[in-house]
């Protein structure tokens, strides 16, 4: 999973990775008729609107004014945003798709999809739910601090101004949640309680050690020592007099108001208009209009198929015993437990390095940005491990994030597949390639289409089979266990949110079918509860990419080159699955070159 600066608007879901060029490159020479020009200006206006909604990303692009700001989710700002979206939509609909060159037609389709998602999100007033499980507006400051490098004194001053603006940011989000309380549109009690625990942790930090001071403590030597000391002093004062009271107020609001009033039900479908909202979330996260029931059925059939493959691995390993006994064995046997955090880093690094050596056999285009391995920041321990996008311009690598707090609960049998998912050829390869693709408009270089991004990462795990990455039946079982986990998500997410499943049902579904540790299972289920629909994108996206590959192999026969296919999938940046299918069909017609 990828970690974003975590408010739930479109703008914030756009990746924070840096962009190599400030201007949208002129489209190819053939894209020059009046419609194409109208699209070019529409793309620019769409990007400007997105930028105005996401100061965190803007600041990572070197915009100092944005560096001092937080996202503005006030009702006034959201209403203005809605008007701007509608205006863009009218302009977009006035352009006949057939009059556009292929590149601009693709831009039009992508922006239309995004505008619809945004307008629908405003329609549901989802600003009332500014957090999910583990992440939300209250971890946004942590991500901002972890992701920023301050190089100059003006940048440091902008950061101090940002600290001063934190109380207003929290106040706006609190108003939105109060509207949620009034309308009964809230996260479940379980999710709210977890959020409260993190908020309390924030408020308990000694002022002088506050994590939001870290960017100021790491100022470069090019700023005189006296100035650096002064900036830290000023920042510390702002934390003491403004940030800390805001953190305390938030804790009190959650303790006395939000948590007591939060619903016991874990189903998003039980909220007012909740079933329609869930169908919307399916469209956004899984890029499909399948009904929850159809997704549930698909999940059950995948579970059955994968179970067959798992049984084959157990047989191949020579293990004597039941499926459940093998699960216990692979979760607990010392040979699958890392000896130390260092041992774990080494093993993850070794997988990434092995893949790196093989990549040129499977891809023509590779990114320049490196990927590294790093322990999760202490402030963010409550959210899961994953991938943090980097930035060439900011000098920040892509990072596979590891949490070594519970090594006994992190069996290494699944580590190979996991590292391929988060690192290469999964998230890092796909995201860094898009970031570095100067030929794409900016919004496509940093876009996140969950079903595409997570589908690609899950496809990457499977690609490891033909790459020879799984050297033992245990490692392959580890991969299948992860695949099973994603198939279970189809069953569980739909089950809990609209089909009346209990949390315990969800837990046993994972326990019966996957090799996941107990700790992971608990965290997972809570994540699905607090982030409805998101977990569907993985399997839905992966199935589509595998279908497209099978279609291309059949159509192209000996002309099929896997490297060209992979380049084709990744070259446009993330796109919704139906648009991806259209693109691949065109590619097949062109002869797969």
């Amino acid at each position: 999973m990828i970690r974003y600066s975590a408010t739930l608007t479109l703008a914030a879901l756009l990746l924070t990775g840096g962009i190599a060029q400030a201007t949208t490159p002129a489209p190819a020479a053939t894209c020059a008729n009046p419609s194409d020009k109208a699209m070019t200006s529409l793309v620019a206006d769409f990007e400007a609107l997105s930028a105005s909604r996401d100061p965190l990303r803007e600041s990572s692009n070197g915009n100092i004014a944005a560096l001092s700001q937080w996202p503005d989710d006030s009702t006034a700002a959201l209403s203005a945003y809605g008007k701007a979206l509608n205006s863009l939509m009218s302009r977009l609909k006035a352009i006949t798709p057939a009059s556009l060159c292929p590149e601009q037609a693709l831009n039009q389709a992508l922006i239309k999809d995004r505008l619809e998602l945004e307008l629908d999100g405003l329609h549901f007033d989802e600003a009332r739910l500014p957090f999910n499980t583990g992440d939300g507006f209250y971890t946004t400051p942590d991500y901002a601090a972890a992701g920023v490098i301050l190089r100059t004194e003006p940048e440091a001053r902008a950061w101090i101004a940002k600290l001063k603006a934190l109380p207003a940011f929290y106040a706006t989000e609190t108003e939105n949640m109060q509207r949620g309380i009034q309308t009964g549109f809230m996260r479940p009690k379980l999710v709210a309680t977890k959020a409260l625990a993190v908020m309390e942790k924030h408020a308990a930090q000694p002022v002088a050690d506050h994590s939001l001071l870290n960017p100021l403590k790491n100022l470069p030597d090019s700023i005189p020592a006296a100035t650096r000391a002064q900036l830290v002093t000023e920042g510390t004062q702002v934390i003491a007099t403004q940030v800390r009271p805001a953190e305390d107020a938030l804790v009190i609001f959650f303790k006395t108001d939000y948590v007591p009033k939060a619903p016991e039900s874990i189903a998003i479908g039980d909220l007012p208009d909740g079933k329609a909202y869930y169908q919307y979330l399916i469209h956004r996260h899984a890029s499909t209009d399948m009904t929850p029931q159809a997704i549930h059925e698909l999940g059950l059939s995948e579970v059955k198929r994968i179970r067959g493959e798992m049984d084959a691995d157990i047989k191949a390993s020579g293990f004597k015993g039941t499926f459940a006994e093998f699960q216990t064995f692979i979760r607990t046997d010392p040979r699958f437990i890392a000896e130390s955090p260092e041992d774990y880093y080494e093993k993850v690094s070794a997988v990434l390095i092995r893949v790196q050596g093989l990549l040129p056999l499977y891809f023509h285009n590779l990114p320049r940005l490196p990927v590294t391995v790093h322990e999760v920041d202490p402030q963010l321990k409550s959210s899961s491990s994953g991938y943090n996008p980097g930035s060439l311009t900011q000098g920040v690598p892509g990072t596979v994030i590891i949490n070594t707090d519970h090594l006994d609960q992190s069996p290494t049998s699944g580590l190979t597949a996991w590292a391929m998912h988060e690192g290469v050829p999964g998230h890092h390869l796909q995201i860094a390639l898009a970031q570095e693709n100067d030929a794409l408009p900016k919004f496509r270089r940093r876009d996140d289409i969950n079903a595409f991004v997570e589908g690609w990462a899950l496809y990457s795990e499977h690609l490891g089979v033909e790459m020879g990455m799984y050297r033992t039946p245990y490692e392959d079982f580890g991969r299948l266990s992860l695949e099973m986990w994603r198939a279970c998500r189809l069953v569980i997410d739909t089950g809990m949110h609209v089909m009346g499943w209990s949390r315990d049902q969800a837990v046993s579904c994972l326990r019966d079918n996957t090799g996941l540790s107990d700790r992971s299972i608990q965290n997972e289920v809570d994540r699905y509860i607090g982030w409805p629909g998101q977990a569907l994108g993985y399997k839905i996206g992966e199935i589509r990419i595998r279908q497209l590959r099978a279609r291309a192999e059949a159509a192209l026969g000996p002309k099929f080159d896997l490297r060209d296919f992979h380049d084709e999938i990744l070259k446009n940046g993330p796109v919704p699955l139906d648009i991806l299918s259209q693109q691949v069909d065109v590619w097949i017609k062109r002869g797969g070159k």
Partner: protein
Amino acid sequence: MRHLFKAAVVGTILSCGIGLPPAMPAFATVPVAASPGDVAFETLWKAEWKWRKALTGDNDDDSGENVIHSHFPDVSKTAQDARLAYWTNVLAQLDTIDPTSLSPGQQVNYTVYHNQIETLAAQQKFRGYEMRFGFWSGLSYAARKPMRTEQDYRNYIAYLNDVPRYFGQNIDNLRAGLKRGFTPSQISLQGRDSSVAIAFENKTPEQTVFYTPFLAMPASIPADKQAELKKLGAEAISQSVIPAHKTLLAFLRTDYIPHARKTIAAYDLPDGKAYYQSLIREYVTLDMTPDQIHQIGLDEVAKIKVEMQAVMDEVGFKGSLQQFNDFLRTDPQFYVTTPQALLDRGAWISKEFDGKAAQYFGRMPRMRFAVIPTPDAIAPYNTGGNGGPGVLILNTYNLPSRPLYTLPALVLHEGAPGHAWQMPLALENKDLPDFRQSTYISAFGEGWALYSERLGVEMGIYHTPYEHFGMLTYQMWRACRLVVDTGMHAKGWTRDQALAFLRDNTALSEHEITTETDRYINTPGQALSYYIGEMTIWKARHKAEAALGDKFDIRQFHDAVLQLGSVPLPVLEARIDRFIADGGKGPYADQ
């Protein structure tokens, strides 16, 4: 520790009367229209380059592409004479072009190219191929290349069947060298025949390293085809590869090694003094005398000793440097017990570097590397590691001689940002002419790799005083090379003197001290390139830092150095002067 593609070659050049290099060209800031001289130059090098590429077919090919060759190059006397004639002719034509008539960008290319052709012609003229001891090790690397298609496998099988012809030609060449006393020193050859024996003795064809590609074949090749290819592969090994190795082994044991020369000094070869000077020119790319280099070595050894003492003080070690080195050589905390553990640690260090790379480099290579062990057949005599496009090779043979405290420095040198970073960057730089993308100049490549080790200090790669000391001992080792190489080849030092000097000053294991010293005996001058190259890069950096002040950006500086590809040191110095004149702007507009 040489980069991968030179590892198998014992380079030799005899003395020669090469003309002075052309005056250093200016560097263009804007593209300038091609002049008539440009056209003549381009026509010349393009034809030669095409011809040169057609010659290769062996795995000393630096292309970095995963081409599976179907044959070895022709290395017969006839072919060698043809090469000499060809390059001599190219050199003559090159000299008819007035460098000042070229556009500024082409002047740099001309300088680099002239140096390349001079070196190639000199190698032919003095019949370096007659001393190519170790020519067989390229075969172990070929067996490690990933293969993708049926055609790849068919090529590889044809390649295996070409081994007898290739070995036979090489043996003829060695025999010619033997006849005129042109051989490596006998002492450095003791036991080296085992690298031939280990490849096949007590092994079925399927157990040899040559069979590796058939062990795991791509699923895209149908099962019946796989079976056929496996059969053909095993046949090629039993009928071609193994017999050729047997013939070679017999030749080495009965003829070559017993009759190899007893002396160690380059000066002891006919015309040895001029010969050694020409090797200095090839490897250092500067005109320095052995005495000058020897003195620089002694001065640097003294300076690094002071840095080492500081580390010993920091950890509170009471005792001499030698005692400290003994402690490092023997304490179990500095050693792993399994090959995989060493490889995994190497991978982790590489990933730590990746975490910081973007703060030190604007332009980074697309091709990254795998970490793999040195092939068994050559591991006992190979150095601690090698690196090149796509691979960082760590020697996991004799693990008690592979300390962890030097591993970070080794990984930076052979992996990133050393060889496995610098070389792909050059390969991927399609703005450079072909002959600058894949060629290699030791002083630049090894100088850069050694610079990379010390760069690790400011990058925070060395986490303990011991790891920092490991970096220092590697610096010391390369500084000692200046003393030892010139000592043995020009100043009458014995092998024992060289061994003792390394033992007294470095923390190298006894195993490494021996293999290293024998390597210096075998490749006079090569070991000088590292430290002189590094000193040149640091000198250029300090000059740029002083001149540019706040405007100095380390990323732009590194981009400017690596954008060159691989060039003689004077070209590098001129480039940094231009960098300073341009106000510290790097070569890439978007960085």
